[in-house]
């Protein structure tokens, strides 16, 4: 196993990583942060979510589901972005492909790490998912397909390291198909719940795939930029061109998401559809309006779109800032989507006394720490990846 790993890690070629103390220290600090988060997760697994998490019987899914969704959306998006070059042969997307494949593995693992602590009996999963497989359950399909996806992406990455590009592309395609299927099933986990008006309908799976493309684009821009900055590498012309193309793709997906969001808003308001209207009002003018207008709309969509358009996707630093804004906004999108969908009381249409107009949820320290461990893990492996794989340089072929 060790030999296999050693044989995969390039000893030369690529770019010389910066072996500075600062980077190593950053990695150590992030690793410690991840471990602390995991410790919080283990603690809540042992004593139960009832005592550590902010989730309730009314709002059973909290911050960690939102962060899980965030990570797997990002992973699927990275896979989509990598496949444009690798699988479909668009040369402009080639230079970012290898890093994107690597990061798609890292982010899905971060997602799995977070969900492992959100599910109360994680250890029962391997057996129960097999002997109790429920083919009508979207969450079963999502889990199973993401398992296959992870395998395909790992094989693809190994084949890329071994410079076996043809077979790698085949696995890339398999990864893409299983990833898209898994991801749309994740959308369906929400969209097929008839009792949750805000989620119900075909919108969720479609929206999830569209926002995956945005997540993937902005994440690869941010991570590439960071990788080059901390290692003091000079960006080649082909890499700059590649990032500009990714920036244009990001702008396009932002436009699509704006279009989706506008129509989701209009359908949520017009005719006051029961349940849905209340949720939409919570976002537009209620307790989640700052999340919505500042987080989702301003940071997630408008700012990045304006920055990319103003600089016409040419200035790489501007692209980086736009992408960073988008990532923050996407986090708000995931959080609002998961939480607001559950805040609508089950019996909202009955004149009940002492019954909340809206349920409430607030993440606890345990949840926040576990969420942070996912981000810290991603940070460690981002930096480690740059070092080990020497800038993920894709050779001309």
């Amino acid at each position: 196993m060790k030999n296999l790993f050693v044989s995969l890690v390039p000893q030369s070629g690529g770019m010389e990583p910066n072996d500075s103390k600062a980077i190593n220290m950053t990695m150590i600090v992030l690793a410690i942060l991840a471990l602390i988060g995991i410790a919080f997760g283990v603690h809540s697994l042992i004593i139960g979510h009832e005592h550590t998490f902010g989730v309730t019987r009314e709002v059973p899914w909290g911050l960690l589901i939102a962060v899980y969704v965030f990570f797997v959306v990002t992973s699927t998006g990275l896979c989509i972005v990598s496949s444009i070059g690798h699988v479909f042969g668009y040369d402009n997307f080639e230079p970012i492909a290898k890093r994107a494949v690597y990061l798609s593995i890292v982010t899905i693992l971060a997602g799995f790490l977070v969900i492992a602590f959100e599910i109360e009996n994680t250890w029962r999963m391997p057996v129960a998912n097999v002997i109790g497989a429920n083919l009508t359950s979207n969450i079963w399909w999502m889990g199973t397909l993401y398992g296959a996806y992870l395998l395909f992406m790992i094989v693809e990455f190994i084949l890329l390291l071994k410079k076996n590009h043809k077979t790698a592309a085949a696995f890339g395609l398999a990864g893409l198909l299983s990833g898209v299927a898994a991801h749309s099933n994740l959308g369906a986990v929400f969209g097929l719940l008839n009792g949750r008006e805000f989620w119900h309908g075909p919108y969720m799976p479609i929206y999830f795939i569209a926002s995956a493309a945005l997540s993937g684009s902005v994440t690869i821009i941010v991570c590439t930029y960071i990788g080059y900055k901390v290692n003091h590498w000079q960006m080649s012309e082909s890499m700059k061109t590649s990032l500009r193309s990714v920036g244009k793709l990001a702008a396009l997906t932002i436009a699509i998401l704006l279009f989706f969001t506008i129509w989701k808003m209009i359908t949520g308001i017009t005719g006051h559809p029961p349940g849905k209207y209340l949720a939409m009002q919570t976002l537009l003018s209620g307790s989640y309006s700052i999340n919505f207008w500042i987080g989702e709309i301003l940071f997630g969509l408008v700012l990045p779109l304006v920055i990319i358009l103003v600089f016409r996707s040419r200035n790489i630093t501007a692209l980086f800032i736009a992408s960073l804004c988008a990532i923050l906004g996407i986090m708000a999108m995931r959080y609002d989507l998961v939480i607001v969908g559950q805040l609508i009381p089950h019996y909202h249409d009955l004149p009940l006394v002492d019954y909340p107009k809206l349920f409430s949820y607030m993440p606890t320290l345990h949840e926040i720490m576990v969420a942070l461990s996912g981000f810290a893990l991603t940070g460690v492996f981002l930096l480690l990846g740059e070092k080990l794989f020497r800038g993920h340089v894709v050779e001309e072929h």
Partner: protein
Amino acid sequence: MKIQELKKMKNEGTRDLSSRERRHFLKMGFIITGVYLGGRVLSLASTVKAAPSSMVPQQGEYSYSPHYTMVVREQRCIDCERCVEACRSVNEVPEYGRRTMIHEKRRPMADDGFETVFMPILCNHCNRPPCVRVCPTTATYKDEKTGIVVMNRDRCIGCKTCMTACPYNARYFKEEGRYVDKCNFCRDTRLAQGELPACVTACPAEVRIFGDLTDKKSRVYSLLHTPDTYVWVLRPETGALPNVYYTTA
């Protein structure tokens, strides 16, 4: 062409149809049949074989035998919560959890007063249960014989999707046993011994009536088939087909 004129026309018969046209017609028929058949197979299989033609299933439409049902006469409820307490002690429901609860409905009356009605809620043991569909490990399932929605506790992974899917807020996570707990009509604690569910026995006002809907002599059957009464279910728009009915009877 007007229908009157059509009536006057002579039937051309099928003799003059070319075999090409016949083939075309047959092909079309096969395609339509195929599309419907395919759609039927592909559509997610529901847990009941036949959906009832109305809210309360008619004779010949019962999916289970006994088809356990609860009828709630909510206007009789006085909110004494003895049902909640009986359930708690019989089924070892912890302090933070509830298998059943009572909500208070209020509407203004003509004399400026209010009418208050207490509405007990519990698992509706739906015939198309959203919780059963979403469970990744079939830890929650419809009992094939009785239609009770049951938990296989050891298989629950605690993903809480069933809690999110339930339109009735009927489930909670029981930390003590690490599984999602819910009403099962006291299947293990009382029904197995031939006793009625704890909440039914505890109720001093005979609000909750429990029985087998397939039995025409049962009280649930007669309550659901009483003239000049109104029968309803909660959140019918979700299509879950509940087996807990509310009535003015």
